[in-house]
């Protein structure tokens, strides 16, 4: 008799758990990254292989591209409830096949959301030496330039069809003058992210061509290297960053 009662209790508990799961019906939402040049996809196979032409007409090849995205949040349009990504930041490296991380995901109820994130780190989060996984890959930004971390490293060669010259398109905190610094991150927000009854994957795409296009037409012959301490170049990058990201949901 006791055994029957125990079995009944266990069965009821299991049944009850199942029902709870149905009620919550939260969905897994992942984040993945992709890159393009205008509308053409760019992958690691394009590194040191594909010749791109920027808005200024400069021919260029990419040797490497890394960038930092932080503080990814989904906000439900109806309830106003915000859901923080499991990871505080993600360093995307185009030379690696890894486009995502399990820790980047959200678990949210179906609905319409706004996705917000920051290109780089906010002033509050851009703490010198704070993140061990960024320190070990030397992603740091020199203390003399305000410290913290790089937001972007895009390296390559331009005038590749004539006489190749290197460019180091690196972005981070802007130095106004010795000891005076200005934040340089860019917040992004994308509305109408629909999360349905199934799991979803949000793709954040970087259009690399936009770095050289909008609003500043970038002339690599004038601005190619030693851009980190160049205040004007740093702020031009921040301006051009505004249009590099787009978002899609599958």
């Amino acid at each position: 008799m006791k055994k029957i009662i125990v079995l009944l209790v266990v069965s009821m508990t299991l049944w009850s758990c199942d029902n709870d799961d149905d009620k919550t019906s939260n969905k897994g939402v992942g984040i993945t990254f992709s890159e393009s040049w205008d509308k053409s996809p760019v992958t690691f196979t394009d590194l040191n292989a594909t010749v791109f032409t920027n808005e200024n007409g400069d021919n260029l090849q990419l040797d490497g591209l890394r960038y930092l995205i932080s503080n990814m949040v989904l906000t439900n349009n109806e309830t106003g409830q915000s859901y923080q990504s499991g990871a505080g930041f993600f360093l995307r490296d185009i030379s690696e096949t890894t486009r995502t991380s399990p820790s980047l995901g959200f678990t949210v109820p179906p609905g319409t959301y706004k996705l917000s994130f920051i290109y780089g780190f906010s002033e509050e989060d851009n703490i010198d030496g704070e993140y061990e996984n960024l320190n070990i890959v030397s992603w740091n930004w020199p203390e003399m330039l305000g410290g913290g971390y790089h937001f972007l490293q895009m390296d390559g060669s331009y005038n590749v069809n004539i006489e190749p010259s290197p460019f180091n398109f690196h972005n981070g905190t802007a130095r106004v003058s010795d000891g005076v610094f200005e934040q340089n991150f860019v917040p992004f927000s994308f509305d109408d992210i629909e999360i349905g009854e199934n799991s979803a994957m949000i793709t954040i795409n970087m259009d690399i061509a936009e770095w050289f296009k909008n609003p500043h037409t970038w002339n690599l012959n004038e601005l190619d290297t030693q851009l980190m301490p160049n205040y004007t170049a740093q702020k031009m990058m921040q301006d051009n960053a505004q249009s590099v990201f787009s978002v899609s949901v599958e």
Partner: protein
Amino acid sequence: MKLILGILFFLCLCSCSSEREEQYKPIPVTIELPTTFQSLLPPPVIPQENPLTQEGITLGRKLFFDPILSRDNTLACADCHSPQNAFSDSKRFSDGLDEEKGIRNSMPLMNLAWNISNRFNWDGSAVTLEEQIFEPVTNPIEMDHTWEAVENELNADDEYPQLFEQAFAINRIDSTAVSKAIAQFIRTLVSGDSRFDQYLREEVELTPQELSGLEIFMNEEKGDCFHCHGNPNNPLWTDNQFHNNGLDEAFDDLGLGGITGDPSQFGLFKSPSLRNLAYTAPYMHDGRFETLEEVIDHYSEGLQFSETIDPLMKSIAQGGVQLTPQQKEDLKAFLLSLTDEGFVSNPSYQNPN
């Protein structure tokens, strides 16, 4: 009834005895981390299949210094990776058996438990430390032995069978266990107590010349060394990546590209750590520079263009970053502040045999 009880008691004793044997476990060890590593770096990467143990490390150390791994029992790992040279070799090309020589300078061994790129050697030819250890034993210009012969010698030895049994609970020594033991020892080779580390811990002051050198190192308009060689927040002083740093117009040695077959990686070699440069001369993958002055001159005026040169060698059109003589001296003074005297004299890293 007494007989039955007696049999049961005997069986119980047998069972306890065999359990005791099976239950022998080597003692786990955790790497003692320098303060700066604790605060700035993720934990060291220790493979699940080869955890650090007291017995494994002791065995690995014994093997590292033992010429038994070479064909004629004359050459040990430590002969080309000497503790007093920060586990490198003062010779440009190390002597193999029968005075054979290679084409590369012996790489220093330190802080390899933080090599998250998982590519070892100048050309990235090994993807784990354990795998790296396999190659020199059979390489004709190094130890020129066979693993079968090494295993036989070790199994016939008076001491090794017991040491392997204690470390790995095996009755028959094999090459996998040898590589695991040596890898464990190498993972304990941690250098994190240079004057610069002490400066970061606010225990000492750097000289004005060393501070000037640090500024040159970190300034994109001067040395711009930090993109490949770490910074005060990356105490490994390497990015553990591969670069063509403008040594040659054409390549005799393809480096990483020779392993991957990718022409865009021809002439790329691993960035070495800048720790302990006082002990690791000569420099570069082929040991072409005997002094630090020559190394600094190379980056200042000696860059050579080739198709795969790293874009970070941005001053290629000028031949280099054009440092003044004073800047060169300051940079050298800073680099030498990364010297960790305690590392090369650490008793735990010396020959136990």
